């Protein structure tokens, strides 16, 4: 008798990102929830080797990641593009002390955005990060997500730099609004 295995779920770029975080031995993940990060957050919460820490605001994560590194652990932060604006002054902590840091940012306010209030920060996310000397990578296609995050993790932790991977709204899918 052969047990029929459940059909494998189709590969997902969020799973590839999670695999990259695991390969880089990320042990703390700070996040402010975003729909685009849901699956990744669930992976992190389910992994006993990762402490997933919900934040009230994104800048808390910069301190969390610095503390993790002081204690010998690696952290990653998940946020939406609107949250990048909340981080700007706090990035001076990472820069002044050369803390390695990686921000995984789901984009709003670009492809197919319904809500105009998301647009001002969404269209300035990359420029704002670059003003603070953050190395920015963009992912437009699902198959690039895992390798781009792996590359950003490498340069963050080997180079003591701050990197951000912007996951485009076209990749995530524009938020569906039901009236």
């Amino acid at each position, binding site marked *: 008798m052969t047990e029929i295995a459940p059909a494998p779920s189709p590969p997902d770029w969020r799973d590839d990102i999670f695999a990259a975080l695991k390969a880089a031995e990320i042990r703390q993940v700070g996040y402010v929830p975003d729909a685009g990060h849901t699956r990744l957050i669930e992976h992190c919460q389910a992994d006993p080797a990762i402490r997933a820490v919900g934040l009230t605001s994104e800048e808390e994560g910069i301190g969390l990641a610095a503390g993790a590194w002081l204690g010998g652990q690696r952290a990653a932060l998940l946020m939406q593009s609107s949250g990048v604006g909340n981080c700007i002054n706090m990035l001076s902590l990472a820069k002044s002390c050369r*803390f390695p840091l990686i921000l995984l940012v789901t984009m709003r306010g670009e492809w197919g955005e319904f809500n105009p209030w998301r647009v001002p920060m969404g269209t300035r996310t990359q420029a704002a990060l670059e003003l603070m000397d953050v190395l920015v990578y963009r992912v437009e296609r699902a198959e690039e997500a895992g390798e781009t995050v792996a590359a950003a993790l490498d340069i963050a932790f080997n180079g003591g730099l701050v990197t951000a991977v912007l996951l485009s709204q076209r990749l995530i899918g524009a938020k569906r609004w039901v009236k």
Partner: protein
Amino acid sequence: MRDNDPRLDRRAAIRSLLEGRGDMLLVTGLGSTTYDAASVGDDERNFYLWGAMGAAAMIGLGLALARPERRILVVTGDGEMLMGLGALATIGVERPPNLALVVFDNGHYGETGMQRSHTDAGVSLCGVARACGIEAVFDIADPATLKEFAARLQDFNRTIFARVAIRAEESPRVLPSRDGVHLKNRFRRALGVE
């Protein structure tokens, strides 16, 4: 009036907290609490903030989660804590048993000209901490209670929040290194992770 001010002297308070610190790790908030810690003597297990206002408690959280076998003490000021008030909610959820947060509360922004802070207008940091789910909360206003509290820091197993009422007066500045990379690297070396 100052002679009758019952609140604590900040330098005596920090000495009391760090006396017999053992292997406890220390994070201080920018401004006066960084000078306070340095006044007791520089230590490679001190991580002083010179900026990043509002980050002290969260750095303590990340450190506490990374090193569950070590005790972590964060000492910061009321203004610094008020800027990162959300951190109390986050810490109230995570509740690491090895983290103690101590706020030196003089009700003023000492670094910028002694403007009044929200605590001087009645905001209770102990009330906020308790409402955020931190169970061990202490409001300390005299040397005997502080001494008792300092003894508690030598062995604790739940998240602690304490507000220490200190006098609003400036103490002589004792400036530790401002080189963040140096402070980070020596801290990690002291922990054997660099």
